[in-house]
């Protein structure tokens, strides 16, 4: 299956309305949907009962980031269970979720929405459904590699990897902050590593990666 071209990630927040460029079709044919998507995601999110969602919008209203999202959390659930896979996995929403669990504690149907967002992130990473330079999956992957290698995460090294892979220019922008942290003794380049690395790697590798997970 050919992956859709990912849209460029817009990280500037603007209040001005988008300019009309082209006429876009907003009609959805049922054959464009993946009807098994909802169940698939629910299963990945420990059997979350997405179908019991009554679309009340409490999640969107309680989310501190929903006003920057392209689809509100409520809409993400509606689209997930109706099989709007491409829209959901391409959305900025899942990357904007900061895992604060505000939606989860308030949901009247007790859906663990944060866990659903995690499941969608994993799904998007596994299927390569994210904007090429979206730093979040890059950060997640870098973190994964770091930990698999050392058993611990050395923040300085993680950040360097992140900026190199996404936007080296940004590293310069962050240099002052890094320097400040370094000077106050809050950033060390010393690598943190655990002793039982062999045993840990054996454990991690024994866990079957999800079948859709990409090899790292």
């Amino acid at each position: 299956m050919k992956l859709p071209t990912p849209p460029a990630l817009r990280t500037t927040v603007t209040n001005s309305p988008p300019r009309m460029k082209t006429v876009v079709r907003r009609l959805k044919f049922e054959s464009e949907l993946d009807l098994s998507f909802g169940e698939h995601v629910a299963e990945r999110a420990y059997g979350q009962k997405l179908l019991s969602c009554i679309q009340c919008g409490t999640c969107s209203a309680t989310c501190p980031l929903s006003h920057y999202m392209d689809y509100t959390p409520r809409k993400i659930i509606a689209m997930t269970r109706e099989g709007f896979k491409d829209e959901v996995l391409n959305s900025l929403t899942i990357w904007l979720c900061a895992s604060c669990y505000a939606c989860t504690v308030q949901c009247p149907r007790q859906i663990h929405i944060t866990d659903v967002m995690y499941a969608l992130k994993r799904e998007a990473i596994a299927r390569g459904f994210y904007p090429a330079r979206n730093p979040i999956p890059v950060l997640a992957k870098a973190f994964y590699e770091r930990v698999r290698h050392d058993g611990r995460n050395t923040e300085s090294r993680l950040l360097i990897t992140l900026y190199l892979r996404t936007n080296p220019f940004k590293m310069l922008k962050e240099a002052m902050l890094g320097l400040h942290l370094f000077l106050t003794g809050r950033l060390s380049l010393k690598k943190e590593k655990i002793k039982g690395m062999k045993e840990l790697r054996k454990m991690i590798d024994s866990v079957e990666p999800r079948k859709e997970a990409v090899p790292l």
Partner: protein
Amino acid sequence: MSYLYFPGCSLRSTGRPYEESILAVFRKLNIPLKELDDWNCCGATAYVSIDENRAFTLAARNLAIAERMQNNGNAGEDLMAPCSACYLVLEKTQHYMKTDEGVNTEVTAALRRGGFDYKGTTKVRHPLDILVNDIGIERIAKAVVRPMKGMKVACYYGCQVVRPFETFDHAAYPTTMDRLVTALGATAIDWPMKARCCGGSLTGTIQEAGLRLNRALLKEAEKRGANIILTCCPLCQHNLECYQKRINRRFGESIHIPVAYFTQFIGLALGIPRKELGIQRLFIPLKFADPPTKEAHAHA
């Protein structure tokens, strides 16, 4: 009363003053802490985005080490995790190992391969919970030598300490830290954003959104008359403090409010020298409304 201690990666870098102040305060209160043997990364939120079972396995190794230590001379000692992200991932791992059969089977098998036979007895605790509910506000208040009079504190809990499990406080209106700082002689301001998200790692990734969340928190704390914000999570502290300059530049604000760890604040009240609490590591210098008492000077 003694505890096993899981520092987590952050407390060894950006969160260094957090670790310093925790160790100093617990030492002062005569509560022994024993660092978890050869602990590894908790699994953290970013890891969960890649493969949740592997993330759970990472967290579970720490839980299993704790259980092993409990069985070897550290009986009944809970595992203290000061970083909110570590705290939650460890708790969440416990939760899903208990409630989800798939997670339990896979993680238990992985632990076995590492030589662990984990029974699930480890209890994960946050230092805020331990200080207030185990040690007790009264005992801490008795040890105060420098009452924090005139300090108006915005207690900021962030999200993952209270959500989603609400282990020791309310998910949206927590009060533990407020009660604690009140006992130290300070005034806790009431504000509705105690547990509103700081954006976590968004400041490093989708920075615009992350900065906006922090701006809202900082402005509201200032507006309500706070002269300090206290946090209990290294990421919250980092976001609220280290990005203040950038927020001012980006949005034309003039916010200037120190952001410290609640353990640093306790340490000061208990008369622990500033250096031992890592106060000098803060970007925004901590100033007091009242000059310190003689007693406190003498103690230092």
